[in-house]
């Protein structure tokens, strides 16, 4: 009898979680996206060195163009790795990938990200390049915090760390790439490793 009851309770709990939270986020997604970020940062460093500009946060237009292209490629590759491992984990768990929870998570994530994107476009337009690194980290962190209620696995701590890092970066203009590498690269890798070991 007790066995049946505890099984029932476990079933109720698991159905509630499966249906309301995005449980298939894979640690490997974090590691993949983070590693992509580090590689991207390395190429960005080379582009900046080649341009020879040493003035804090101020580069010529060709360099800015190259950096934007590099950033977009990095973003696409990181998104690819991020979703690849998570879709794979969903399939392994026998869970549908595209559910209303996925949709809600996407919406919660995309609002702060889109606003942050527009904000960065304004920064680029007025050539306030030095503020971009901090701004992207802050808006990314806010997006993670916003999606927190639909995602399992302590994503809010990652969000908070990104926000703190972004705030520091705002006052450390010229070291943007370093903060980016830490925020989008290493924090993702560390978070991914923790997630992977915890929910393996």
């Amino acid at each position, binding site marked *: 009898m007790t066995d049946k*009851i*505890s099984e029932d309770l476990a079933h109720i709990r698991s*159905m509630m979680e499966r*249906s*309301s939270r995005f449980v298939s986020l894979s640690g490997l997604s974090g590691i993949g996206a983070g590693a992509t970020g580090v590689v991207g940062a390395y190429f960005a460093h080379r582009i900046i060195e080649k341009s020879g500009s040493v003035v804090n946060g101020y580069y010529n237009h060709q360099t800015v163009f190259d950096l934007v292209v590099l950033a977009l490629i990095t973003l696409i590759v990181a998104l690819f790795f991020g979703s690849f491992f998570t879709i794979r984990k969903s399939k392994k768990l*026998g*869970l549908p990938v595209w559910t209303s929870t996925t949709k809600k998570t996407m919406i919660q994530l995309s609002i702060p990200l889109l606003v942050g994107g527009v904000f960065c476009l304004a920064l680029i337009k007025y050539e306030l390049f030095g503020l971009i690194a901090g701004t992207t980290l802050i808006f990314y962190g806010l997006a993670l915090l916003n999606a927190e209620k639909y995602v399992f696995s302590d994503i809010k701590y990652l969000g908070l760390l990104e926000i703190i890092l972004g705030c520091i970066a705002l006052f450390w203009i010229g070291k943007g790439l370093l903060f980016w590498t830490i925020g989008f690269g290493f924090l993702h890798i560390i978070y991914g490793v923790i997630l992977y070991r915890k929910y393996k």
Partner: protein
Amino acid sequence: MSIISGLNKEFESRVRLGMMSVLMVNEWVDFTEMKNLLQVTDGNLASHSAALEKNQYIEVKKEFVGKKPRTSYKISELGKRAFQEHLNFLEKMMRQ
């Protein structure tokens, strides 16, 4: 509901228990998503949802999206209370 008869017979089936759990934490859930979540067949889900509807534990909405019919479920106030009582009972049994 007395303690002795406290186990709600309606929730004895895993499918019904699962449906109610899903509907406790989500507003409207459509047929396909429910089917995928519970991993049951169409017929199985249809018969269990009909039973829950008969007891007025859930509301059923049928509509057309384009040309395709879509059925969605939502828990009723009565259903919420019944499920909550069932949960309380399960917990009480566990503590004994």
